[in-house]
Protein backbone atom coordinates (compact mmCIF):
# COMPACT_ATOMS: atom_id res chain seq x y z
CA UNK A 1 0.00 0.00 0.00
CA UNK A 2 1.08 3.55 -0.71
CA UNK A 3 0.34 6.35 1.74
CA UNK A 4 1.15 10.02 1.35
CA UNK A 5 0.59 12.30 4.33
CA UNK A 6 0.84 16.06 4.45
CA UNK A 7 3.08 16.26 1.40
CA UNK A 8 4.08 19.88 0.93
CA UNK A 9 6.36 21.57 -1.57
CA UNK A 10 7.08 25.25 -1.90
CA UNK A 11 8.89 26.96 -4.75
CA UNK A 12 10.03 30.34 -3.49
CA UNK A 13 7.14 31.52 -1.35
CA UNK A 14 4.30 29.68 -3.07
CA UNK A 15 3.11 26.28 -2.00
CA UNK A 16 2.85 24.14 -5.10
CA UNK A 17 1.75 21.18 -3.02
CA UNK A 18 -0.37 21.97 -0.01
CA UNK A 19 -0.40 19.18 2.54
CA UNK A 20 -1.53 16.44 0.16
CA UNK A 21 -2.97 13.27 1.71
CA UNK A 22 -3.42 10.27 -0.53
CA UNK A 23 -3.71 6.53 -0.13
CA UNK A 24 -3.37 4.12 -3.01
CA UNK A 25 -4.28 0.47 -2.66
CA UNK A 26 -2.19 -2.29 -4.21
CA UNK A 27 -3.12 -2.65 -7.87
CA UNK A 28 -5.14 0.55 -7.86
CA UNK A 29 -4.91 2.91 -10.83
CA UNK A 30 -5.20 6.53 -9.84
CA UNK A 31 -5.32 9.29 -12.46
CA UNK A 32 -4.60 12.90 -11.55
CA UNK A 33 -6.22 15.62 -13.62
CA UNK A 34 -6.35 19.38 -13.33
CA UNK A 35 -5.24 22.64 -14.91
CA UNK A 36 -1.54 23.17 -15.68
CA UNK A 37 0.58 24.50 -12.86
CA UNK A 38 -1.52 23.01 -10.09
CA UNK A 39 1.14 20.68 -8.76
CA UNK A 40 0.21 17.41 -10.51
CA UNK A 41 3.71 16.80 -11.83
CA UNK A 42 5.26 18.12 -8.63
CA UNK A 43 3.27 15.53 -6.68
CA UNK A 44 4.80 12.73 -8.75
CA UNK A 45 8.26 14.26 -8.67
CA UNK A 46 8.13 14.62 -4.89
CA UNK A 47 7.11 10.99 -4.44
CA UNK A 48 10.29 10.11 -6.37
CA UNK A 49 12.32 12.84 -4.63
CA UNK A 50 13.23 14.37 -7.99
CA UNK A 51 11.91 17.46 -6.24
CA UNK A 52 12.56 17.33 -2.55
CA UNK A 53 9.35 17.84 -0.55
CA UNK A 54 9.47 20.38 2.26
CA UNK A 55 7.24 18.38 4.56
CA UNK A 56 5.20 15.22 4.71
CA UNK A 57 5.62 11.48 4.86
CA UNK A 58 5.72 9.01 2.00
CA UNK A 59 5.17 5.33 2.63
CA UNK A 60 5.60 2.71 -0.07
CA UNK A 61 5.23 -0.84 1.25
CA UNK A 62 7.55 -1.11 4.23
CA UNK A 63 9.57 1.96 3.27
CA UNK A 64 8.46 5.08 5.07
CA UNK A 65 10.27 8.37 4.58
CA UNK A 66 9.79 11.62 6.46
CA UNK A 67 10.58 14.40 3.99
CA UNK A 68 12.07 16.76 6.56
CA UNK A 69 14.78 14.31 7.57
CA UNK A 70 15.12 11.92 4.67
CA UNK A 71 18.63 10.49 4.45
CA UNK A 72 20.33 9.62 1.22
CA UNK A 73 19.63 5.95 1.94
CA UNK A 74 15.91 6.67 2.51
CA UNK A 75 15.69 8.47 -0.81
CA UNK A 76 17.42 5.63 -2.67
CA UNK A 77 15.14 3.05 -1.05
CA UNK A 78 12.07 5.05 -2.04
CA UNK A 79 13.26 5.52 -5.61
CA UNK A 80 14.03 1.82 -5.90
CA UNK A 81 10.48 0.97 -4.82
CA UNK A 82 8.98 3.27 -7.44
CA UNK A 83 9.44 3.76 -11.17
CA UNK A 84 9.04 6.97 -13.13
CA UNK A 85 7.92 7.50 -16.71
CA UNK A 86 8.87 10.94 -17.97
CA UNK A 87 7.03 13.24 -20.32
CA UNK A 88 10.19 13.64 -22.41
CA UNK A 89 11.06 9.90 -22.11
CA UNK A 90 14.45 10.52 -20.45
CA UNK A 91 16.07 7.52 -22.12
CA UNK A 92 19.81 7.20 -21.62
CA UNK A 93 20.98 8.64 -24.92
CA UNK A 94 24.22 6.66 -25.07
CA UNK A 95 22.58 3.29 -24.51
CA UNK A 96 20.51 1.06 -26.79
CA UNK A 97 16.86 0.26 -26.10
CA UNK A 98 17.83 -3.03 -24.48
CA UNK A 99 20.62 -1.43 -22.42
CA UNK A 100 18.17 1.21 -21.19
CA UNK A 101 15.87 -1.50 -19.91
CA UNK A 102 18.76 -3.48 -18.36
CA UNK A 103 20.49 -0.55 -16.70
CA UNK A 104 18.61 -0.59 -13.38
CA UNK A 105 18.82 -4.37 -13.19
CA UNK A 106 22.58 -4.42 -13.59
CA UNK A 107 23.72 -1.24 -11.86
CA UNK A 108 21.11 -0.85 -9.13
CA UNK A 109 19.80 -4.35 -8.51
CA UNK A 110 23.18 -6.03 -9.26
CA UNK A 111 21.55 -8.91 -11.13
CA UNK A 112 23.70 -11.21 -13.24
CA UNK A 113 24.09 -9.94 -16.76
CA UNK A 114 22.55 -12.99 -18.46
CA UNK A 115 19.47 -12.74 -16.26
CA UNK A 116 19.12 -9.02 -16.93
CA UNK A 117 19.45 -9.59 -20.68
CA UNK A 118 16.82 -12.30 -20.64
CA UNK A 119 14.41 -10.05 -18.79
CA UNK A 120 15.14 -7.10 -21.07
CA UNK A 121 14.36 -9.25 -24.08
CA UNK A 122 11.09 -10.40 -22.51
CA UNK A 123 10.14 -6.78 -21.90
CA UNK A 124 11.18 -5.71 -25.40
CA UNK A 125 8.81 -8.34 -26.76
CA UNK A 126 6.06 -7.12 -24.46
CA UNK A 127 6.45 -3.52 -25.57
CA UNK A 128 6.57 -4.65 -29.20
CA UNK A 129 10.14 -3.55 -29.86
CA UNK A 130 12.03 -6.85 -30.01
CA UNK A 131 13.46 -5.79 -33.36
CA UNK A 132 14.72 -2.49 -31.93
CA UNK A 133 16.80 -4.00 -29.10
CA UNK A 134 20.05 -2.58 -30.47
CA UNK A 135 18.68 0.78 -31.62
CA UNK A 136 19.74 3.96 -29.89
CA UNK A 137 17.04 6.39 -28.69
CA UNK A 138 17.95 8.96 -31.36
CA UNK A 139 16.90 6.54 -34.08
CA UNK A 140 13.52 5.68 -32.50
CA UNK A 141 10.22 7.51 -32.98
CA UNK A 142 8.71 9.37 -30.04
CA UNK A 143 6.21 6.60 -29.48
CA UNK A 144 8.92 3.94 -29.56
CA UNK A 145 11.07 5.94 -27.16
CA UNK A 146 8.24 6.28 -24.68
CA UNK A 147 7.52 2.56 -24.93
CA UNK A 148 11.16 1.92 -24.02
CA UNK A 149 10.71 4.42 -21.18
CA UNK A 150 7.79 2.37 -19.90
CA UNK A 151 9.78 -0.82 -20.48
CA UNK A 152 12.60 0.57 -18.34
CA UNK A 153 10.07 1.31 -15.60
CA UNK A 154 8.57 -2.18 -15.91
CA UNK A 155 11.99 -3.81 -15.48
CA UNK A 156 12.42 -2.32 -12.03
CA UNK A 157 9.48 -4.30 -10.68
CA UNK A 158 8.36 -1.26 -8.72
CA UNK A 159 5.53 -1.26 -6.22
CA UNK A 160 4.30 1.99 -7.72
CA UNK A 161 4.69 3.27 -11.26
CA UNK A 162 4.50 7.02 -11.75
CA UNK A 163 3.53 8.43 -15.15
CA UNK A 164 4.16 12.14 -15.64
CA UNK A 165 2.12 13.16 -18.71
CA UNK A 166 3.55 10.27 -20.72
CA UNK A 167 1.85 11.25 -23.97
CA UNK A 168 2.07 15.05 -23.80
CA UNK A 169 5.30 15.31 -25.79
CA UNK A 170 4.17 12.87 -28.47
CA UNK A 171 2.93 13.57 -31.97
CA UNK A 172 -0.75 12.54 -32.10
CA UNK A 173 0.07 9.56 -34.27
CA UNK A 174 2.13 7.92 -31.48
CA UNK A 175 -0.26 8.51 -28.57
CA UNK A 176 -2.35 5.41 -29.23
CA UNK A 177 0.50 2.92 -29.01
CA UNK A 178 1.71 4.36 -25.71
CA UNK A 179 -1.78 4.28 -24.19
CA UNK A 180 -2.17 0.69 -25.40
CA UNK A 181 1.01 -0.27 -23.60
CA UNK A 182 -0.20 1.46 -20.42
CA UNK A 183 -3.43 -0.55 -20.65
CA UNK A 184 -1.45 -3.76 -20.80
CA UNK A 185 0.71 -2.68 -17.83
CA UNK A 186 -2.52 -1.96 -15.93
CA UNK A 187 -3.90 -5.36 -16.87
CA UNK A 188 -0.93 -6.96 -15.08
CA UNK A 189 -2.14 -5.47 -11.80
CA UNK A 190 0.55 -2.80 -11.57
CA UNK A 191 -0.21 0.00 -9.11
CA UNK A 192 -0.17 3.21 -11.14
CA UNK A 193 -0.35 6.92 -10.44
CA UNK A 194 -0.86 8.77 -13.70
CA UNK A 195 -0.89 12.46 -14.55
CA UNK A 196 -2.50 12.95 -17.94
CA UNK A 197 -4.57 15.28 -20.09
CA UNK A 198 -6.09 12.34 -21.99
CA UNK A 199 -9.55 12.49 -20.42
CA UNK A 200 -11.04 9.57 -22.33
CA UNK A 201 -8.11 7.42 -21.34
CA UNK A 202 -8.43 8.57 -17.73
CA UNK A 203 -12.08 7.59 -17.63
CA UNK A 204 -11.30 4.21 -19.11
CA UNK A 205 -8.24 3.19 -17.09
CA UNK A 206 -8.77 4.81 -13.69
CA UNK A 207 -10.18 3.15 -10.60
CA UNK A 208 -10.16 6.61 -9.09
CA UNK A 209 -9.72 10.09 -10.52
CA UNK A 210 -8.23 12.93 -8.52
CA UNK A 211 -8.84 16.53 -9.47
CA UNK A 212 -6.15 18.92 -8.26
CA UNK A 213 -6.09 22.66 -8.26
CA UNK A 214 -3.87 25.12 -6.42
CA UNK A 215 -1.75 22.39 -4.89
CA UNK A 216 -4.71 20.65 -3.25
CA UNK A 217 -6.91 17.68 -4.00
CA UNK A 218 -10.26 19.33 -4.67
CA UNK A 219 -12.35 16.32 -5.52
CA UNK A 220 -11.84 12.61 -6.05
CA UNK A 221 -13.88 9.57 -6.88
CA UNK A 222 -14.57 6.91 -9.47
CA UNK A 223 -14.36 8.19 -13.05
CA UNK A 224 -18.11 8.05 -13.61
CA UNK A 225 -18.69 10.34 -10.64
CA UNK A 226 -15.90 12.78 -11.50
CA UNK A 227 -16.72 13.08 -15.18
CA UNK A 228 -20.51 12.69 -15.14
CA UNK A 229 -21.48 14.21 -11.81
CA UNK A 230 -18.76 16.67 -10.76
CA UNK A 231 -19.60 18.49 -7.52
CA UNK A 232 -17.02 21.25 -7.13
CA UNK A 233 -17.53 24.26 -9.43
CA UNK A 234 -13.79 24.35 -10.20
CA UNK A 235 -13.95 20.78 -11.47
CA UNK A 236 -17.08 21.60 -13.47
CA UNK A 237 -15.34 24.57 -15.07
CA UNK A 238 -12.23 22.50 -15.79
CA UNK A 239 -14.22 19.72 -17.46
CA UNK A 240 -16.21 22.22 -19.50
CA UNK A 241 -12.95 23.70 -20.77
CA UNK A 242 -11.20 20.45 -21.67
CA UNK A 243 -14.23 18.96 -23.41
CA UNK A 244 -14.87 22.14 -25.38
Amino acid at each position, binding site marked *: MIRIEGLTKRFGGTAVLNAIDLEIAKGERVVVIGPSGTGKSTLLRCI*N*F*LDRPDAGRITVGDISVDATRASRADI*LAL*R*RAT*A*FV*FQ*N*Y*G*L*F*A*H*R*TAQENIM*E*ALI*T*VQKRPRAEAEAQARRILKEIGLADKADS*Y*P*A*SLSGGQQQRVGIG*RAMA*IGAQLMLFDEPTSALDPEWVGEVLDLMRSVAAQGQTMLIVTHEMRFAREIADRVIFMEGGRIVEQGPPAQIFDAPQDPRLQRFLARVSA
Partner: protein
Amino acid sequence: MLGLVPVILGYVPLTLAMASAAMVLALVLAVALAVERVFRVPILDQLVLLFISFFRGTPLLVQLFLFYYGLPQVLSFLTAIDGVTAAIMGLTLHFAAYMAETIRAAIIGVDRSQWEAAQSIGMTQGQMMRRVILPQAARVAAPTLVNYFIDMIKGTSLAFTLGVTEMMGAAQKEAAGSFLYFEAFLVVAVIYWIMVEGLSQAQKALEIRLNKAYAR
Protein backbone atom coordinates in the same frame (compact mmCIF):
# COMPACT_ATOMS: atom_id res chain seq x y z
CA MET B 1 71.04 15.40 -42.21
CA LEU B 2 69.36 12.04 -42.80
CA GLY B 3 71.78 10.52 -40.35
CA LEU B 4 70.10 12.62 -37.68
CA VAL B 5 66.71 11.07 -38.27
CA PRO B 6 67.25 7.66 -36.65
CA VAL B 7 69.08 9.26 -33.72
CA ILE B 8 66.21 11.59 -32.93
CA LEU B 9 63.54 8.99 -33.77
CA GLY B 10 65.13 6.91 -31.01
CA TYR B 11 63.72 9.41 -28.52
CA VAL B 12 60.14 9.27 -29.82
CA PRO B 13 59.20 6.47 -27.38
CA LEU B 14 60.35 8.63 -24.45
CA THR B 15 58.29 11.57 -25.68
CA LEU B 16 55.21 9.44 -26.16
CA ALA B 17 55.72 7.72 -22.81
CA MET B 18 55.97 11.05 -20.96
CA ALA B 19 52.93 12.47 -22.76
CA SER B 20 50.83 9.32 -22.33
CA ALA B 21 51.66 8.97 -18.65
CA ALA B 22 50.87 12.64 -18.04
CA MET B 23 47.65 12.38 -20.06
CA VAL B 24 46.33 9.38 -18.11
CA LEU B 25 47.19 10.98 -14.77
CA ALA B 26 45.84 14.37 -15.83
CA LEU B 27 42.56 12.81 -17.00
CA VAL B 28 42.03 11.02 -13.70
CA LEU B 29 42.84 14.17 -11.74
CA ALA B 30 40.76 16.38 -14.04
CA VAL B 31 37.67 14.18 -13.74
CA ALA B 32 38.00 14.26 -9.95
CA LEU B 33 38.42 18.04 -9.98
CA ALA B 34 35.52 18.50 -12.39
CA VAL B 35 33.15 16.31 -10.40
CA GLU B 36 34.09 18.21 -7.25
CA ARG B 37 33.38 21.50 -9.05
CA VAL B 38 29.95 20.22 -10.08
CA PHE B 39 28.97 19.10 -6.57
CA ARG B 40 30.88 21.86 -4.74
CA VAL B 41 32.02 20.09 -1.61
CA PRO B 42 32.53 22.77 1.06
CA ILE B 43 36.20 23.67 1.79
CA LEU B 44 37.42 21.22 -0.87
CA ASP B 45 35.81 23.51 -3.43
CA GLN B 46 37.99 26.46 -2.39
CA LEU B 47 41.11 24.31 -2.60
CA VAL B 48 40.16 23.06 -6.06
CA LEU B 49 39.50 26.61 -7.24
CA LEU B 50 42.89 27.69 -5.91
CA PHE B 51 44.57 24.74 -7.63
CA ILE B 52 42.94 25.48 -10.97
CA SER B 53 43.63 29.20 -10.66
CA PHE B 54 47.32 28.66 -9.96
CA PHE B 55 47.99 26.09 -12.66
CA ARG B 56 46.10 28.03 -15.29
CA GLY B 57 47.53 31.34 -14.17
CA THR B 58 51.22 30.56 -14.43
CA PRO B 59 53.36 29.37 -17.37
CA LEU B 60 54.17 25.68 -17.64
CA LEU B 61 57.89 26.44 -17.83
CA VAL B 62 57.76 28.42 -14.60
CA GLN B 63 55.86 25.57 -12.91
CA LEU B 64 58.42 23.02 -14.09
CA PHE B 65 61.34 25.11 -12.79
CA LEU B 66 59.53 25.76 -9.54
CA PHE B 67 58.99 22.03 -8.95
CA TYR B 68 62.27 20.69 -10.23
CA TYR B 69 64.76 23.33 -9.10
CA GLY B 70 62.83 25.22 -6.43
CA LEU B 71 60.73 22.88 -4.33
CA PRO B 72 63.50 20.36 -3.46
CA GLN B 73 65.26 23.18 -1.59
CA VAL B 74 62.22 23.43 0.66
CA LEU B 75 61.01 19.82 0.68
CA SER B 76 64.10 17.65 0.80
CA PHE B 77 62.33 14.38 -0.13
CA LEU B 78 61.74 15.83 -3.62
CA THR B 79 65.49 15.92 -4.29
CA ALA B 80 65.37 12.30 -5.43
CA ILE B 81 62.95 13.05 -8.27
CA ASP B 82 64.50 12.83 -11.73
CA GLY B 83 63.76 15.14 -14.65
CA VAL B 84 61.38 12.74 -16.41
CA THR B 85 59.23 12.27 -13.32
CA ALA B 86 59.23 15.99 -12.65
CA ALA B 87 58.18 16.71 -16.23
CA ILE B 88 55.34 14.17 -16.04
CA MET B 89 54.18 15.64 -12.72
CA GLY B 90 54.35 19.17 -14.06
CA LEU B 91 52.45 18.33 -17.24
CA THR B 92 49.88 16.41 -15.23
CA LEU B 93 49.09 19.22 -12.82
CA HIS B 94 49.18 21.94 -15.46
CA PHE B 95 46.91 20.20 -17.95
CA ALA B 96 44.60 18.75 -15.30
CA ALA B 97 43.68 22.32 -14.39
CA TYR B 98 42.64 23.09 -17.96
CA MET B 99 40.98 19.76 -18.59
CA ALA B 100 38.97 20.03 -15.37
CA GLU B 101 37.18 23.10 -16.73
CA THR B 102 36.49 21.40 -20.06
CA ILE B 103 35.10 18.32 -18.33
CA ARG B 104 33.08 20.39 -15.86
CA ALA B 105 31.43 22.26 -18.72
CA ALA B 106 30.71 18.96 -20.50
CA ILE B 107 29.17 17.48 -17.34
CA ILE B 108 26.94 20.50 -16.80
CA GLY B 109 25.94 20.30 -20.46
CA VAL B 110 24.45 16.80 -20.08
CA ASP B 111 20.69 17.25 -20.33
CA ARG B 112 18.77 17.44 -17.07
CA SER B 113 16.55 14.56 -18.22
CA GLN B 114 19.57 12.25 -18.06
CA TRP B 115 20.32 13.14 -14.43
CA GLU B 116 16.69 12.72 -13.44
CA ALA B 117 16.31 9.41 -15.25
CA ALA B 118 19.41 8.09 -13.48
CA GLN B 119 18.07 9.26 -10.12
CA SER B 120 14.61 7.89 -10.76
CA ILE B 121 15.85 4.34 -11.25
CA GLY B 122 17.61 4.54 -7.88
CA MET B 123 21.23 5.09 -8.86
CA THR B 124 23.63 6.47 -6.28
CA GLN B 125 25.47 9.65 -7.25
CA GLY B 126 28.56 7.60 -8.04
CA GLN B 127 26.62 5.21 -10.27
CA MET B 128 24.92 8.13 -11.99
CA MET B 129 28.23 9.82 -12.77
CA ARG B 130 29.98 6.63 -13.87
CA ARG B 131 27.20 5.06 -15.91
CA VAL B 132 25.26 8.00 -17.31
CA ILE B 133 26.79 11.45 -16.96
CA LEU B 134 30.52 10.95 -17.57
CA PRO B 135 30.09 8.75 -20.67
CA GLN B 136 27.89 11.41 -22.22
CA ALA B 137 30.17 14.24 -21.12
CA ALA B 138 33.12 12.37 -22.66
CA ARG B 139 31.60 12.72 -26.09
CA VAL B 140 31.36 16.49 -25.73
CA ALA B 141 34.77 16.90 -24.11
CA ALA B 142 36.72 14.52 -26.37
CA PRO B 143 37.78 16.93 -29.15
CA THR B 144 39.06 19.48 -26.63
CA LEU B 145 40.81 16.81 -24.57
CA VAL B 146 42.60 15.49 -27.66
CA ASN B 147 43.73 19.05 -28.28
CA TYR B 148 45.24 19.16 -24.81
CA PHE B 149 46.97 15.85 -25.46
CA ILE B 150 48.52 17.37 -28.59
CA ASP B 151 49.67 20.31 -26.49
CA MET B 152 51.06 17.87 -23.97
CA ILE B 153 53.11 15.97 -26.54
CA LYS B 154 54.67 19.22 -27.61
CA GLY B 155 55.00 20.28 -23.98
CA THR B 156 57.29 17.31 -23.28
CA SER B 157 59.98 19.23 -25.15
CA LEU B 158 60.23 21.43 -22.05
CA ALA B 159 61.66 18.43 -20.18
CA PHE B 160 64.83 19.39 -22.04
CA THR B 161 65.11 22.36 -19.68
CA LEU B 162 65.10 19.94 -16.72
CA GLY B 163 68.16 18.18 -18.15
CA VAL B 164 66.21 15.31 -19.74
CA THR B 165 67.65 14.10 -23.02
CA GLU B 166 64.51 13.77 -25.10
CA MET B 167 64.05 14.66 -28.78
CA MET B 168 64.95 18.29 -28.24
CA GLY B 169 67.93 17.49 -26.03
CA ALA B 170 69.20 14.94 -28.52
CA ALA B 171 68.88 17.41 -31.39
CA GLN B 172 70.73 20.03 -29.39
CA LYS B 173 73.60 17.61 -28.75
CA GLU B 174 73.77 16.47 -32.35
CA ALA B 175 73.69 20.06 -33.59
CA ALA B 176 76.39 21.19 -31.18
CA GLY B 177 78.70 18.49 -32.49
CA SER B 178 78.00 18.97 -36.18
CA PHE B 179 76.85 22.61 -36.43
CA LEU B 180 73.80 21.36 -38.35
CA TYR B 181 71.40 23.45 -36.24
CA PHE B 182 68.81 24.05 -38.94
CA GLU B 183 68.73 20.42 -39.98
CA ALA B 184 68.59 19.07 -36.43
CA PHE B 185 65.70 21.24 -35.32
CA LEU B 186 63.91 20.78 -38.63
CA VAL B 187 64.00 17.02 -38.06
CA VAL B 188 62.57 17.55 -34.56
CA ALA B 189 59.82 19.80 -35.92
CA VAL B 190 58.83 17.34 -38.63
CA ILE B 191 58.72 14.40 -36.23
CA TYR B 192 56.44 16.34 -33.84
CA TRP B 193 54.28 17.36 -36.75
CA ILE B 194 53.89 13.77 -37.97
CA MET B 195 53.02 12.55 -34.47
CA VAL B 196 50.35 15.20 -34.08
CA GLU B 197 48.92 14.47 -37.52
CA GLY B 198 48.65 10.79 -36.58
CA LEU B 199 46.81 11.81 -33.46
CA SER B 200 44.40 13.97 -35.44
CA GLN B 201 43.47 10.90 -37.48
CA ALA B 202 42.93 8.93 -34.29
CA GLN B 203 40.73 11.79 -33.06
CA LYS B 204 38.44 11.44 -36.07
CA ALA B 205 38.05 7.71 -35.44
CA LEU B 206 37.35 8.38 -31.76
CA GLU B 207 34.69 10.97 -32.56
CA ILE B 208 32.92 8.64 -34.95
CA ARG B 209 32.84 5.99 -32.23
CA LEU B 210 31.57 8.37 -29.56
CA ASN B 211 28.87 9.73 -31.87
CA LYS B 212 27.60 6.30 -32.85
CA ALA B 213 24.60 6.50 -30.50
CA TYR B 214 23.52 9.88 -31.80
CA ALA B 215 23.18 9.16 -35.51
CA ARG B 216 19.63 9.35 -36.78
